[in-house]
């Protein structure tokens, strides 16, 4: 039985279809990332799975429970790191950990949680005096305090500096290695690529693609060829100049010319041929495998065009 099984999930607010027929499953021990822009329906979907929201229609099973009805037994086995949720600011980190631990049956010890979350030095400080990143670590600590079988992480590293993100990633990876199932939402592609076994891409409440990060990258796009626009070419003429040379969709962001192509060798040959003929240097010429970011941009562009 999968840890999470979602079939044809809908959540409508009046005419707004926040979640519009989403299906996916997450296997036991899997780390699954829901990826999408703000407002794509990620948090709404996750909050339904956590039991915080009711659904309009569909079927949902989480650890074998119906989250809308399941109460204590269910909540004892999940950990929830919400996107926005406060902690008692007037209490110290030690006090809140003690307090929240008392609700669970399989508690971790204070030392264990503090070490996992990297809060050793803050344990006797009041939560209100911590920085945003440190508070987010308190959120994580409280999420894992009951040794959950399934952990929900709603944008766990938004607003983190790079070092803090790395640390959180290490923690999430360690939990994943421990056999904990993780459902993660993020709009950071590198986060999904780094952590997730599988990724589901949401746009306007619909699941527009799903697979391992590698599958998504392979399946959708080819190779990205990019270089800086030579000074001799005006930005207005960039697309008309390089469209025929590179073939396919040419994009311009700032002065960076980019094209996602299937046959990179040919394209590079034509591009360099054009450059030599015209006596210009293609600065920062780069041929790279498409990243998840390119996939994401392509997919969401397509879905906007069709909708």
């Amino acid at each position, binding site marked *: 039985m999968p840890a999470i099984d979602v079939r044809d999930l809908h959540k409508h607010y009046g005419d707004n279809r926040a979640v519009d027929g989403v299906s996916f499953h997450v296997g036991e021990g899997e780390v699954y990332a829901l990826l999408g822009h703000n407002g794509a329906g990620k948090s709404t979907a996750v909050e339904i799975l956590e039991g915080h929201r009711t659904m309009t229609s569909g079927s949902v099973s989480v650890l074998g429970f119906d989250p809308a009805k399941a109460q204590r037994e269910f909540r004892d086995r999940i950990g929830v790191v919400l996107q926005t949720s406060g902690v008692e600011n007037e209490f110290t980190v030690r006090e809140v950990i003690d307090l929240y631990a008392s609700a669970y049956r399989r508690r971790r010890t204070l030392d264990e949680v503090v070490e996992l979350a990297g809060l050793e030095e803050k344990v006797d400080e009041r939560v209100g005096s911590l920085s945003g990143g440190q508070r987010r670590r308190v959120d994580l600590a409280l999420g894992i305090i*009951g040794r959950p079988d399934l952990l929900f992480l709603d944008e766990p590293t938004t607003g983190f500096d790079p070092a803090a993100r790395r640390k959180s990633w290490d923690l999430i990876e360690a939990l994943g290695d421990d056999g904990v199932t993780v459902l993660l939402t993020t709009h950071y592609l590198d986060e999904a690529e780094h952590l997730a076994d599988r990724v589901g891409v949401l746009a306007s409440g619909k699941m527009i693609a799903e697979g391992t990060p590698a599958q998504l990258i392979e399946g959708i796009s080819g190779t990205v060829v990019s270089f800086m626009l030579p000074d001799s070419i005006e930005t207005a003429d960039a697309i008309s100049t390089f469209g025929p040379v590179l073939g396919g969709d040419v994009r311009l962001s700032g002065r960076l010319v980019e094209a996602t192509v299937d046959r990179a060798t040919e394209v590079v040959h034509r591009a360099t041929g054009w450059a030599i003929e015209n006596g210009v240097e293609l600065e920062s010429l780069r041929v790279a495998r498409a990243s998840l970011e390119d996939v994401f941009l392509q997919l969401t562009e397509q879905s906007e065009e069709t909708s």
Partner: protein
Amino acid sequence: MSAFPSSLSMVLRQTQYQLKYFTRVPVALFFTIILPLVMLVLFNALFGDNTIETDEGDWSVRQFYTGGLAAYTAVSATFSNLANMVPIRRDEGVLKRWRSTPLPTWIYIAGFICSAIVIAFVGAMVMLTVGVVFYDLSIEWAKMPAAAVTFLVGVGAFAALGMALASIIKTASSASAAANATILPLAFISDVFVATDGDSALTTIANIFPLKPFVNAFQDCFNPFVAAPAFDWGALGFVAAWGLLGLGIAMKKFTWEPSGAGPRSRRAARAAATAQG
């Protein structure tokens, strides 16, 4: 797997936690416990030698104020305190976080209410002690069972009404305003700060609400002209009925989430849909 801790121990733990929280919020401590005490001292300094005429004889104002302000402290510890603190925790997202844990929600609420009752008890005891020591308040033990029952009915009812207000009003800032806007004017016409004339229109208005019946019933337990056992069952029944109304509203309307979370209203949903399209 080990069992969950017993409900009783969890309620105790939650009560303890809310009490600790209360003592760390200076403003709540001030308005609930300190301010009524300041009023007691001030009113006695200003009007302490006056008397209130009753049918049986002259009643010392000192005794009038102590009983009335003790009752008011109990109301401010339950009604005002809950109507202020619950929406603050909700706005902060603390309520939603607790809802994610296996703690049964009724235990969380029970902790809130039990802590308010403990604060009310401590506040009223401090007030009565000050009254006995400094303001010739006499304790007639035969009336103390009535005082205890009146107190319990009152704090229960006002705690329920505080939760009701916290349920109807969605943001912390407006809940605080609403709590003060309801209780302060009522206190002025309910024999808390000044003794009111029995036949006036204001008294008629005050008698519609539960504050005056509660204050009067509690004051009677310290009034030398009221004979023991001093139970006012009519007033207690009236206050209890208000409490049940509050309980009904609270159970129907209580929300755990901050009002800004999620496109809840249709208007917000439509705005979101327009923005996306």
